[in-house]
């Protein structure tokens, strides 16, 4: 029950602002100390007053004695004078007459007590009587004519009596004064004792007050600050904070902030730990990559599932082992150290090569070692990622073999083609050569022989062009011949073609028109093949234009392609035949065109050629006749036709 109010009081105290607490802690003992000082002052002033009283009492005593002594001496002197009549005996009397008033006056001032004053007033009366008596005695003795021994005797007697009265009055004054003094003394003693007690009590209270102040200071500030300091230390170490009661002064608020900071920090730390944990779990569960960490010296410090799967060791077996045991014997002595050194120097080191599994088998691995450094750049260890590339190596090997085989097959095919070409041409050479010789000397033969010779030569030539086209197509399709793509300026190319084809067109008895585009540019093409394509198209146009009168060569510039256009005003191609236009050996309308020589391979070959240089060949039905478009890519370099080349071509 008593604890509750104490607690609430303490609570009230701790809730006050620090300035208030400081004021209280300093002012409280100071006030008590001041009051002690004040009581000490009161005690000492009372003592001083008492001393004054004593001094005064002594002065009164002394003065009353003096009064008595002066009067006694004066009386003795007067008596002597009366007896001797010598003036020198009057000296004490005269001194008393001069000193007494002053002494009495001093006493009058000094005496304060009423009772004493009553006695003093009586003393004054008896002193006055005594003086009167003395003065009358002196007067009697001094008068030479009236010598009355009896009156003198009486006067002396009276004097003695009055002196006794004075003595008694003095004694009375002294006695009462002594009583007053004693009373005073007691009073002063009491006061002094009281004040001393008060001082002692004040001192004790002051002491207690300062102890209380210190206690309050320590509970209100020091203890709490030290607890706060302790909490700050815990915060720095990342430990849980000690719970502090909620208080609303500055320290309380600081504590509250500290708690909030700690909570925030803890939440953040929790997040980080959770994410680290997630990351660790992810890494641990990665199956396709062996991910593990090494310390600075290369000793394994962590191990994931992928590492176990790839290398065979479980985590228990491999932790704290040096990672060089993953390397085969021939590289074990130097490669691990080299890898670590490279990773240390360059941040990471990558390598591809043989590694060893737990069971001693080898696998082809891709390895990346990364140096792990802390914020200060101090090396903490290494992370190592290992991939089992055996499968990929196998497939790469298979791919390489397949590619080599394909290349070899292609080479074989090319060889076969060139060999076939050679083997077919060689006998044809003799056939055609002798045929030509026979033709030259035809006048030696009869007409039906001449005709036979002509047929042989014609069939031989046809066979030759068949072989040529066929081999061309095959070699293009086999990729056996190289394509040499270069920028070809359109205008010059057209002029060259015109010059080449003009005799063919002319021999067919047709007009040959050339349209060179006003804007020049270059195309990316194999010049020889492009020439072959266009010449073939012109040849066809000349050959099949049996009804028209002209062949036109031109070009159309499109966004990123250029179309070389060959058109004629002949009969054209029947729409039904168009789909088969580019099929080998499909000579359209063979029966009608028997008169026209051809292998049926020309357009197929041209299309292959066009496609081999990333171009195309299309047929469009023109208003009249046929129109073929040979498209090739435009060169980004733009027109690059030097003037002299153009000049030569037209010359």
């Amino acid at each position, binding site marked *: 029950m008593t604890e509750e109010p104490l607690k609430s009081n303490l609570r009230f105290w701790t809730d006050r602002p620090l300035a208030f607490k400081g004021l209280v802690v300093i002012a409280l003992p100071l006030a008590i100390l001041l009051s002690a000082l004040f009581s000490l002052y009161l005690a000492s002033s009372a003592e001083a007053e008492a001393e004054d009283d004593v001094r005064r009492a002594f002065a009164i005593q002394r003065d009353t004695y003096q009064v008595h002594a002066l009067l006694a001496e004066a009386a003795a002197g007067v008596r002597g004078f009366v007896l001797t009549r010598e003036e020198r005996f009057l000296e004490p009397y005269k001194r008393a007459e001069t000193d007494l008033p002053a002494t009495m006056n001093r006493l009058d001032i000094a005496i304060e007590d009423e009772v004493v004053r009553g006695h003093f007033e009586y003393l004054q009366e008896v002193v006055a009587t005594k003086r009167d008596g003395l003065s009358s005695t002196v007067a009697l003795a001094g008068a030479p004519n009236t010598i009355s021994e009896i009156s003198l005797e009486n006067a002396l007697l009276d004097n003695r009596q009055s002196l006794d009265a004075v003595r008694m009055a003095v004694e009375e004054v002294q006695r009462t004064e002594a009583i007053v003094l004693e009373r005073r003394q007691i009073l002063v003693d009491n006061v002094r004792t009281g004040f001393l007690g008060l001082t002692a009590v004040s001192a004790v209270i002051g002491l207690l007050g300062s102890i209380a102040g210190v206690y309050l200071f320590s509970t209100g500030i020091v203890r709490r600050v030290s607890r706060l300091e302790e909490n700050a230390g815990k915060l720095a170490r990342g430990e849980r904070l000690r719970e502090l009661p909620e208080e609303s002064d500055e320290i309380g608020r600081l504590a509250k902030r500290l708690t909030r900071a700690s909570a925030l920090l803890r939440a953040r730390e929790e997040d980080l730990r959770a994410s680290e944990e997630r990351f660790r779990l992810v890494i641990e569960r990665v199956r396709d990559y062996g991910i593990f960490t090494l310390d600075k010296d290369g000793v394994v410090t962590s191990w994931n599932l992928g590492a176990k799967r790839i290398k065979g060791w479980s985590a228990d077996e491999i932790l704290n082992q040096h990672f060089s045991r993953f390397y085969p014997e021939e590289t074990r002595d130097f490669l691990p150290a080299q890898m670590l050194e490279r990773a240390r120097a360059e941040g990471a080191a990558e390598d591809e090569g043989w590694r060893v599994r737990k069971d001693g088998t080898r696998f082809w691995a891709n390895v990346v070692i990364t140096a792990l450094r802390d914020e200060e750049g101090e090396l903490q260890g290494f992370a190592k990622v290992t991939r089992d590339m055996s499968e990929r190596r196998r497939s790469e090997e298979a791919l390489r073999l397949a590619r080599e085989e394909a290349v070899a097959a292609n080479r074989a095919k090319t060889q076969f083609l*060139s060999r076939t*070409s*050679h*083997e*077919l*041409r*060689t*006998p*044809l*050479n*003799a*056939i*055609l*050569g*002798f045929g*030509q*010789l026979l033709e*030259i000397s035809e006048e030696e033969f009869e007409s039906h022989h001449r005709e036979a010779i002509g047929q042989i030569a014609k069939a*031989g030539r046809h066979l*030759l062009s068949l072989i040529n086209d066929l081999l061309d197509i095959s070699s293009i399709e086999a990729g056996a*011949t190289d394509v040499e793509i270069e920028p070809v300026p359109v205008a010059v190319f057209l002029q060259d073609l015109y010059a080449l084809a003009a005799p063919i067109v002319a021999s067919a008895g047709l007009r040959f028109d050339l349209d060179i585009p006003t804007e020049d540019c270059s195309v990316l093409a194999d010049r020889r093949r492009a020439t072959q394509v266009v010449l073939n198209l012109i040849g066809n146009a000349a050959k099949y234009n049996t009804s028209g009168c002209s062949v036109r060569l031109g070009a159309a510039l499109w966004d990123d392609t250029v179309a070389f256009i060959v058109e004629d005003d002949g009969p054209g191609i029947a729409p039904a035949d168009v789909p088969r236009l580019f099929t080998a050996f499909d000579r359209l309308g063979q029966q009608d065109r028997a008169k026209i020589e051809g292998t049926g391979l020309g357009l197929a070959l041209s299309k292959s050629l066009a496609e081999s240089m990333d171009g195309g060949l299309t047929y469009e039905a023109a208003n009249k006749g046929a129109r073929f478009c040979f498209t090739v890519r435009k060169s980004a370099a733009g027109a690059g036709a030097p003037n002299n080349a153009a000049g030569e071509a037209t010359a």
Partner: protein
Amino acid sequence: MTKRLVDSDEILSCRILAIDDEEANIALLRNVLEREGYSQIECLTDPREALATYMEFEPDIVLLDLMMPEVDGFQLLESFGRHDAADEFRPILVLTADTTVQARRRALALGAKDFVSKPFDVIEVGLRISNLLETRILYSRLKP
């Protein structure tokens, strides 16, 4: 006939060496050459004898096939080149059924003076031979 700087008799008296493993082609060449009027014709179907014949016969022109068994035309071109003096102009006309650009380039680079694809035009071959011989005669006239 063609306008010439050299007397045709001088041309026709030149020695011609034809090397081809194919009998029919050799026969054709001999026929063409004889028809032209050449008198000194040496024909070979075995290329292994070529170098010996070349050195012995000292032809003014060689008609050479490229694709032959044992020793091919390229090897012979090299051998002839090594044998000849540096200032000798002894034309070699390659006649081959190998129509590839590579073969053409290689043959010309090895010293062949001309290249004709088989099957050839007999008249053209005759003209090329006489042209080359004319050049050789003119060249030898210039030599001190």
